[in-house]
Structures are given as C-alpha cells and as structure tokens.
C-alpha cells in the first residue's frame, strides 16, 4: 500500500507520542486494553452525532455497519445528544478509540 507521502510543514502529521495518544491504531490500542476496562465514562457535551461508535460496534459484533444494531446508542434531543449503552455491552472499548471527539473515556 502506498505510504502517505507528504510530511512537511503545515501538512506534517505529528509523530507517534507527540500527540499525547498512546501509539498504534485504534484497534491496536483497544486490543491492549482488552479485559481491563471497568467503565466507559461519557461526556455528551462533546458528542456531535457522528455515530462512529455505533458503526464500529455494529461491525464488530453484528458483522454489518448498522447503527440500529449497536450496543452503544446515541440519541438526539432538543438539548443535545445522549449516550446510552445496552446490556450487551462488553466494555471492549472500541467505541472509545474510534471517538475522535473524546466524548468517551475508558476507565481501568
């Protein structure tokens, strides 16, 4: 696969570690956390409704991108978003790693 060529000046993507994030892709980071998460804390004020959490959850556990089959559910009301989890949630943490808005945080 072609490697992203541009790393200069304004387009520079920051090096591993510099971002304050642990190294690795979201999936790699999730696998390191496997079994260690005791709670997922939510900050609905940071949620923008991208539903990436529902998409990764449904693909992982139902083999299909389908927001209605996710174990994390985002609702939109007049006062913003609400974040809920169904009883089937196993605290795997994938939704946390795919939430780039930091509305979810894994507690170990």
């Amino acid at each position, binding site marked *: 696969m072609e490697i992203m060529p541009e790393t200069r000046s304004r387009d520079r993507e920051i090096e591993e570690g510099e971002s304050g994030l642990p190294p690795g892709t979201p999936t790699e980071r999730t696998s390191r956390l496997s079994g260690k998460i005791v709670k997922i804390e939510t900050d609905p004020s940071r949620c923008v409704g991208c539903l990436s959490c529902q*998409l*990764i959850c449904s693909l992982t556990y139902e083999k299909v*991108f*389908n927001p209605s089959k996710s174990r994390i559910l985002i609702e939109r009301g007049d006062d913003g978003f609400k974040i809920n989890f169904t009883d089937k949630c196993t605290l795997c943490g994938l939704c946390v790693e795919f939430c780039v808005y930091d509305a979810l945080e894994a507690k170990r």
Partner: protein
Amino acid sequence: MEIGGYAGNILHVDLSTHKVEKESVTPELAKAFIGGLGFSVKLAYEHVKPRIGALSPENPIIIGAGPLVGTIAPGTSRVYAAAKFPINNAIAWAGAGGMTFGTMLKNAGYDNLVIKGRASKPVYLKIFDDDVEICDAGELWGKGIEESCRRVWAKSGWPVGVITIGQAGENLVKFAMSYVDNASTLGRGGFGAVMGSKNLKAIIVKGTKGVRVSHPKRFMKLVDSLFQRIRRWEHLDEWHEFGFWLGLPVVPREMYYELNKARLSCISCPISDKDVVEIKKGKYKGLTKVTTTAINAVTPSLLGLSVEDSVRCTGTLDDYGMDMFEFFSVISFVNELHDQGIVTDQYMESTIPFDLESLEKWAQKVANREGFGGILAEGLPGIINTFGEESKRFAPPMAKGLSVYSGPTGPLLWNRFGTMEFSQLVNPRGAHVAAGGSPTYYAVRPLDKFPTHLDRMGVPESAVERILPEPGHWQWGLRFGLVSPEDKVGLNVGRMTKYSENWLSVLGSLGVCARAQINRFYYASLLAELYSAATGIQIGKEELMKAGDRVWNLLKVANVREGFGRKDDGFSPRWLEEKSQFIDYTGKVKISEDIADRFLDDYYQERGWDVERGIPTREKLLELDLPEAAEEIARATF
C-alpha cells in the same frame, strides 16, 4: 447479486401514478460509475430527456449515496443529486453533507432514488426500509425548513434523514435549495424548486438493514490506519475547537465563542463543520439556528450587517430555503438597475437598503413571489430577461446564470485566480467552487506543495509538468507571442481543473466529503483500495480515476445536448475589468481576457475535448467506454 458496499437497488417513484419500482445495481454499473455522484449523472443522462422543462413533471429528481456511505470510513456521508436546474436549464449535480440521510438511505436498501411526475397535492415521500409511501404533506406545506424537520423528527424520531424544501421551493424560486436534516444545502440552481414543482415537500428515510462490506478485515485495516493519521494530525484540536470557522481566516476566532452553541456532524465525520449558533445579545437574544457552518451565518456581516443581524438574516433565508449568495446578488443587481433608471419606481420605489428589516421584507417577497419579488425570484437570468439586454452589463459576474462565489468582486473577496475560480466557468452546473477544490488546496498555497498534492489526486506525472511549467516558460504562450517573457504564470489552472473535477467526481461517487479538511487524508490509491475492499470489485488507481473522468464527461454530454458549449464557459466581463485586479495564482500576472482564453483552451485540451467547441470528442468518449454518448456527440450540430 449482492455487491458489498452497495445497498443494491435504485428506487423509482412516479408521483403522478404512484408507481414504485426497484432496479438492481449491476456489477457493470458499479464498476463504471462507482455510485453517488456517478450513478446520479448516469441516471440523469438516461432520464432527463433533452429539452424538457426544468419544472415539468418529466424532470426527474435523482438522489444518491455512494458505496462508502454508511460505513465508518471517515467523512463518508455525502449525498449527491442531479436534475435539470431551473436557473439555467443545465443538467446539474448537487452535493451536500449527508448528515443522517445518506446512511439511512443505504440502510433502507437504496443507493439511488429517481423521482418523476407531479403529485396532485402536496406530499412527502416516506421510505422506511421496504415501506415506500407517498404521504399527505398538508401539515408541512407552507412551513419553513426548521419547522418541517422538527415535525418530522417529532413524529418519526432521529436519526430519520430528511430532505425538505421551504416556502421558496414551494413557490418555485429559481435559487431555492433543498436542505438535508435542517443543516446541509443541496442545489443552489433551484433544486428546491424542482421538488416544489412536483408538490414534493420532503423525502424522509429510515433504514435498519445495514451496510455490508465484502472484505471487512481489509476494509478495517485501511480505516484503522486512516483514524490513526487523523488523530495524530497536528491541526485536529484546532478544527474541533473552531470547525469550519478556520476556513475564513479574516474573521476573528474570538467571535466564534460568542456565537457557538453546539456542533453537529454528518455520520462518520471526524472533523464536523455544522454549527448551532445562538445570538447572545440584542433584540434576537436567545435565537438559535442550525447552519451549514457558522461562517455562513456571519457572512453578511462582512457586507455591513451586525453579527447578530447577520445570523438572524441568514436564518430567515435558510428557513425559506433559498441561497444566500444568489439572494444578495439579485438585490444588488436590481439596486444597480434602479440607480441606472432601468428598474423604475413602478417596480420598487427606492433601492433596497442593506439592513435587516429591508432584507427580511424582501426575503419574504421573493420566497412568496409577492409583487416585484416574483421577478427577483427568477434569479439573475430572469431579471435580465425582464429588463432586456441593456440591463445585462450591470449584472454581477456570473457563470451560466449563477453569481460567481469567489474572485475580486465576489462575496469572498479573493483576487487570486486558482482552480476554485476557474472551475466555476467550466462547471456544467454553473458557478460553484467545489469542483475546483482538491485535497490540500487553499488559496496562496506555495507551488512547491503542488507536486505532492497532485500526486494525491492521481494526476499522471506527464500532466504535472503541464500544470506546473517552469516559471517564465509558459511554452505555448511564448511560442505564439501571446505572453511576454516577463510574465510568469506558474500554475496552469486550466489544466489542473480537469484533475480537480475528476477528483471531486471520484470522491462524490464514493461518498467521501468534498471539504479539504476531510479529503486531504485520502489519496487516489487509498480510495481504490477502500473501494475494492468494500465492494469486492478489484479496481486500481488508474481505473478509479478513469471512472471519475467518465462521470464528468457524461455530465458534459448531457449538457451538450441541451446546447451548452464553449460559448457558455466564457468569462463574465465584470470579472476581468480593471478594478477587479484579478491576478494569477502566483500573484505575478494580471489576468487578461487573452490569458483567460488560453486557460480555457488548455482546459479543453487537457480534457481531450474539441477546443473550439468546448465539448467532448467522439474519440474521447469511446476511450471512456461511452459508445452511446460518442454517437450522440458525433451528431451534435453546433
């Protein structure tokens, strides 16, 4: 046959006969036209019969979402539409951030919609999985965009996707748009009026079927790596903080804090740009508004309104469902015609002052076609039509009947002649900047960034040399003595625009966002890999880019049969007049009519088109595997 990524069906609905039919997506169609924008263009070529009226029942409304829409690939929610647009009778494309609509459409089981006919009374189209119903819209008709969406969600819940029109669309205002989920806009050339002409107030979709990809592991490996790069992007926090506010650096950042209430995103978007703004002081304190970006909401403040009045004004225009830029252009045009004595007091007693009260009054007159507002509702071409040829020279700079966005006299006050400026002239739909954008393009970007930038877009090396000639050696110009040796036009925007258009064509067909801050993370070979993993149809970078080329060429052919050619791609004289100070991209050469014409020559030549007529050649269309279009172009008689 089920193909990954695709929902597998094109839904045909006839509002006159209530006939509903499904057509299967074939692997051949998928590979040749990709989906989304590509399918919409292909369907428009088939279903928009030549020379039909844009507001006639025969003109189809075509809406689609590409094979990546509904997946987690970042920023893949785009919705594309096509129809004949009433402002200029072009067969036009329109694109919008899909919010929930695109994903819900795919989840309901459809890649595209083709809606024809005319309902006998106001209706909305409900598509909930296999339940497709034409429903009475009596309660929604006459309501604004926001109220219409609110009522739909109150009844059917979120994330039901909604495309709706306001009063402007109902009353066939020729720059009425459709709105996606009360946030994104679709089709400033009057797509909203096409819906209105069908008595179609809204389309609402909800789906529970899901979107499957053929090779989930391969697909997720690519997506995983994309997310990693996005999370490590040094400007991510800044974009999260300010959203698209960063897109217009002339507006102070502090102002964003005064307005911002919340941010909204399209599904799968990691860099959201839809804002909820709130007026914090003055007469309209507490008024909130969802906007395609907060920047749009404050744009009239650059023209003299207070920020609060600006937010209120754009809110009103959005709620009627009409394009802000076109509205301000028609106001400024009739004001000038009044000053010139061409628009007499019988039409309007005085020029329209640029204050909130007057603008809201005229917005209402236009949206409801009251009195002289009915003539403004016809747009710039309609005003010229009413007041005759002598009015034409006072018209704002236009391309195919729509006012140009950027440029020295445009609302964005930009005087460099880049691809976003040039592309407005050659875009079959008329003035619109998106097709001139590219992954990392922004104005005054240094030229040494371009080779990498062009590589992302899949531009062949041989073309890079033509796009970026050595300074001072604009070969053909020197050879023919058209440009003096002192002139240094370092970026050939004519040639580059072909590749910007093809890039948009590919992104739009797949469903990837057109905004630079999203598609900068993509590059041609990655898009080909994603498509192959999602669909199971193996395709390389060259083949994918060729599909983009095919889509744009077919769009052009659809317009050639409507009579469009080089004569319609010309520069508006006002765009080139002395005071406009248009200079080339590198800031060294004033753009004269000669240079502008040469850019046009180069554009057509790069596209492999007939330079004199500005239309695709038979050979080019055969090369793109479009035999039917090739025969049609061979018969074109102008």
